[in-house]
């Protein structure tokens, strides 16, 4: 059963004469990692600021964790967020910053702080002044502050900006762990589309203040013809054997190529099934869809309208 964590209905926002968002409709369900994609100034941060009430809502309705109106504040206490850049007291240590946040949320015990420090990989920096951290460590502290109250919903605005490649990989793993171990629903925006593709389960494309498309990762992969590409002179037999082996998302491309539309499918296992079934496999390749290509094509299409 899908449980909506965030429901946005007909939300619009204007800054003076500038229309920042227009009639946004969006639902994020429990367990989603929703990747929000758009160019600079598209309205991603504005949308996140509206959700967190850092920007006053002018038009439309936002329901957060089932709460709206006067109860919205209570729902806010169940979310964590990094909007624009992580904010903390630079002259205090990492642990002191977390302690302040814990007190604000009525949380006690140093165990929670220790757990959070370990989770974001800052245990060794607990007594370092926050202002002396590297950019990547600051992002980790921001994430630590956001996850300290063990939120049900996490909002991350460009959280991997400035991270080195190793930091990006670790950050990705952190997000996946949060989603899988703590069932945290995540709304994330980033310009690094390859990363967004790796972590997200759903995508929303925002362009000039309009949410132009939403789709699941499976739908994106299908549109991009992603999956395992098999080259064989026996396409019909291969399709029959794989269908019997419960690989139902199959696409015959031509008389030499067959695509298994599942990015999680194991090429070695598929190869074994086919060879066992007497099918000669010439080549087998993992074909990954490019979110960047899809986004570029989508923008081109929008531009042509």
């Amino acid at each position: 059963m899908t449980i909506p964590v965030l429901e946005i209905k007909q939300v619009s926002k204007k800054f003076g004469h500038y229309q920042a968002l227009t009639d946004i409709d969006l639902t994020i369900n429990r367990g989603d990692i929703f990747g929000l994609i758009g160019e600079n100034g598209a309205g991603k941060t504005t949308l996140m600021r509206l959700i967190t009430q850092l920007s006053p809502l002018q038009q439309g309705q936002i329901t957060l964790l089932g709460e709206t109106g006067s109860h919205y504040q209570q729902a806010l206490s169940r979310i964590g967020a990094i909007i624009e850049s992580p904010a903390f007291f630079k002259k205090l240590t990492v642990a002191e910053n977390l302690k302040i946040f814990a007190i604000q949320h009525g949380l006690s015990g140093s165990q929670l702080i220790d757990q959070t420090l370990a989770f974001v990989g800052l245990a060794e920096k607990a007594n370092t002044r926050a202002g002396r951290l590297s950019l990547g460590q600051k992002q980790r502290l921001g994430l630590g502050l956001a996850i300290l109250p063990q939120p049900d919903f996490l909002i991350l605005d460009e959280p991997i900006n400035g991270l080195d490649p190793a930091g990006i990989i670790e950050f990705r793993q952190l997000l996946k762990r949060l989603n899988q171990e703590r069932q945290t629903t995540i709304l994330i925006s980033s310009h690094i589309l390859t990363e967004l593709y790796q972590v997200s389960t759903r995508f929303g494309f925002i362009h000039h203040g309009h949410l132009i498309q939403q789709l699941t990762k499976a739908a994106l992969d299908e549109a991009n013809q992603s999956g395992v590409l098999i080259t064989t002179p026996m396409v019909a037999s291969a399709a029959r054997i794989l269908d019997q082996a419960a690989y139902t998302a199959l696409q015959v491309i031509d008389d030499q190529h067959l695509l298994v539309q599942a990015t999680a499918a194991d090429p070695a296992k598929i190869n074994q099934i086919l060879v066992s079934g007497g099918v000669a496999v010439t080549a087998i390749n993992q074909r990954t869809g490019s979110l960047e290509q899809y986004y570029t094509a989508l923008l081109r299409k929008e531009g042509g309208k």
Partner: protein
Amino acid sequence: MINQIRADFYRQRHTWGSYLTVLLTIIFSATITAQRSVGGIMINGTDLLQRLENSKWTVLSGLQSATLSSSVLLYGYLGIFVIVIGYEFSQSTYKNTLISRISRLQFVLAKFLTLFLDLLGLVGIFYITAFLTGRIVGRAWGEPLPTLLGHLAIMILTVAFFINVIFGIGLLLLVVTHSTVIAAVTIAVWPLLVSLIGMTTQWSWLKYFDFMGTAQQITTQSLATIKFAPIIGTSLGLIVVIIVGSTIAIRHQEL
């Protein structure tokens, strides 16, 4: 709101500026009391100042002298204003705060109350140091001890309250402009500005906004000679305007 106040006190306990302020308060109070020197920012000298200069000092004289010097505290405690509320805006940590369970009104009230509790503590240290210093250097009480202690309590409460009203004006300006500089400069120039405008324009109603002057009057004159209602009424009205105004401003801002 209580959690926010607790968080602010935790933060102050881990900020060396807080300890420096306490230390400077003790040194300043002990020095002016022991040395019989009355320092302060006054547009006109008072009768009390002359009386103090020409009389033998008692512990009460020391407390009265401390009151005349209390205008200096406004500048000395600007650092506390910056620590409690200025940092929130200069380092954008209010974003974290406002995404917690706290409402805008509770946030403003928490900051105002934290400042008041800070001032109560610091002004208390200032007067108690003057009280103890007077006694240590061998001065007489100057009036019966229970009465003196009553005066001491009134002095602490009054000076802390009126400094907090001026800090409140700074709080409102900070929330509206997000500029610590504008807020701090306004706090610093307020007593001088009100006095100078009052002298230039002869607007008698301005006396209700001369908070430091009022604090000095209340703590150095006979209480019976002062019309409390308009003074306290203006200050309380201004506090309501500060809290409501700050809340409305912060609700409608792009944070």
